[in-house]
């Protein structure tokens, strides 16, 4: 784990706060700050160098979710107000969902917001804006957003969520296709797993846990694909004749 002098590498190197990650000429991305003679990491994380855009960023290995506009998150309603809901989004900052962003006519006299979302309800929502001074604002207007009915929630380390989604959604689209459950992934580290077969749900949870544990390794998508293929191949073998699975057992 040595910093190769001035060279740019593809290896995922772990850096600590204060460690130099690039010379001048690169632009500081997330988790990187500029000092007199270069760019330094401000986080405990892994370095990512985007040569094309000459940006260096450090992806946190630990830490909490900081809201960004356009993020899809899973939140829990903790308070119902007259014109808005207060939502816990697993972040240092409590979020606000305004009634208008839930498509509700604001009239505190005739409308009880509890009819729509009550305390304890989980929501899939999108971050509209966050300036760090006022609470992040959410919306539930959009495809796939709104109250979550049924399923279980898996809590993962927020900085590892991008891995569950994958490059351009490669991982999540594979999971969607192969797993026999419905997944809703929140950028804030909550993943909703919905399915009718408890075995399938348990398997999906184990896959999510595996992705979380091995988030910073190479070839993860391929390895996960292998596991999924193996499981569903086995099941098919058993279902059809039983001969295939018997033969497989002999080999082992």
């Amino acid at each position, binding site marked *: *784990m040595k910093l190769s002098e001035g060279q740019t*590498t*593809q*290896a*995922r*190197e*772990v850096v*600590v*706060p*204060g*460690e*130099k990650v690039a010379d001048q000429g690169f632009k500081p991305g997330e*988790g990187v*700050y500029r*000092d007199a003679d270069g760019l*330094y990491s*401000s*986080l*405990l994380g*892994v370095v990512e160098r985007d040569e094309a855009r000459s940006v260096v960023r450090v992806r*946190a*290995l*630990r*830490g*909490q979710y900081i809201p960004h506009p356009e993020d899809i998150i899973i939140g829990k309603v903790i308070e119902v107000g007259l014109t808005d809901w207060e939502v816990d989004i697993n972040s*240092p*900052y*409590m979020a606000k969902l305004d009634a208008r962003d839930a498509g509700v006519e604001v009239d505190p006299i005739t409308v009880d917001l509890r009819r729509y979302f009550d305390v304890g309800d989980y929501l899939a929502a999108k971050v509209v804006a966050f300036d*760090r*001074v006022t609470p992040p604002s959410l919306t539930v207007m959009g495809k796939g957003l709104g109250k979550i009915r049924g399923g279980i929630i898996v809590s993962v380390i927020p*900085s590892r969520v991008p891995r569950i989604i994958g490059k351009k959604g490669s991982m999540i689209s594979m999971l969607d296709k192969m797993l026999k459950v419905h997944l809703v992934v929140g950028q804030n580290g909550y993943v909703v797993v919905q399915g009718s077969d408890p075995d399938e749900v348990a398997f999906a949870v184990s896959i999510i846990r595996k992705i979380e*544990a*091995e*988030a*910073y*390794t*190479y*070839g*993860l998508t391929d*390895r996960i694909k292998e596991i999924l293929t193996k499981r569903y191949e086995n099941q098919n073998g058993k279902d059809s004749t039983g001969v295939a699975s018997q033969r497989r057992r002999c080999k082992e």
Partner: protein
Amino acid sequence: MGKIAQESLLSDDGVRSDGRRIDEARPFEVQVGVLTQANGSALVKQGKNLILAGVIGPYEAERHSQYLDRGVLRTRYHMQPYSTNERKSPTFTRREIELSRAVREALEPAVILTDLPRAQIDVFIEVLQADGGTRCASVNAASVALADAGVPMRDLVTAVAIGKVRDTLVVDINDLEDENGQADFPIAMMPSKGKITLLQMNGLLTQEEIQKSIEMARGVIRSLYEVQVEALKRRYAPLAASGNREGGSDA
């Protein structure tokens, strides 16, 4: 106060009461992420000092204590009743309140609080066993715990106490040297920036001795810093290394 003779703290051939040379720091060990419920944690052994630091946060601060443009760092330094050779009352003493503040002021320049407006970060430091220089060991534990919690920082913070016994400067003083020596001079730095974040002194030093102490501290801090970095990487490198086709790490 029955002080021990200076001669017994440093022999004629430059050996200290615990067998160390004047420029030799005590064995230093750091363990990262020892607590599962805290957001970040570290256990530090510095000589016979045993110090646990746990971090909670960042979380949204209470309205009356929040700032709109920056986060708030809180530290609590506490000694266990069994940490010293005479029972210490478990309640906070004046000294502990002061040290809580000293440790916070040593850490504050390194933490990028402007990235965390309205938030609060709490660092809880428990001295499980004390052997002189606990404030420095506490800073060493707390800065690693903060990094472990994913708090944005400019650098880690590393500290060491320089002391004077028998008119000679010695590094990383233990309890005996602290109590019977001529000076106790704790220094904290951001090691890769070379900037000092804490400077306190108890006793008497000449101007030249202060200059020399700072230079001695720089060297020791560099080596302690390497242990801190190594501990953080040892804890997290396996995550990035398993399945890494560029070859594994040395951890």
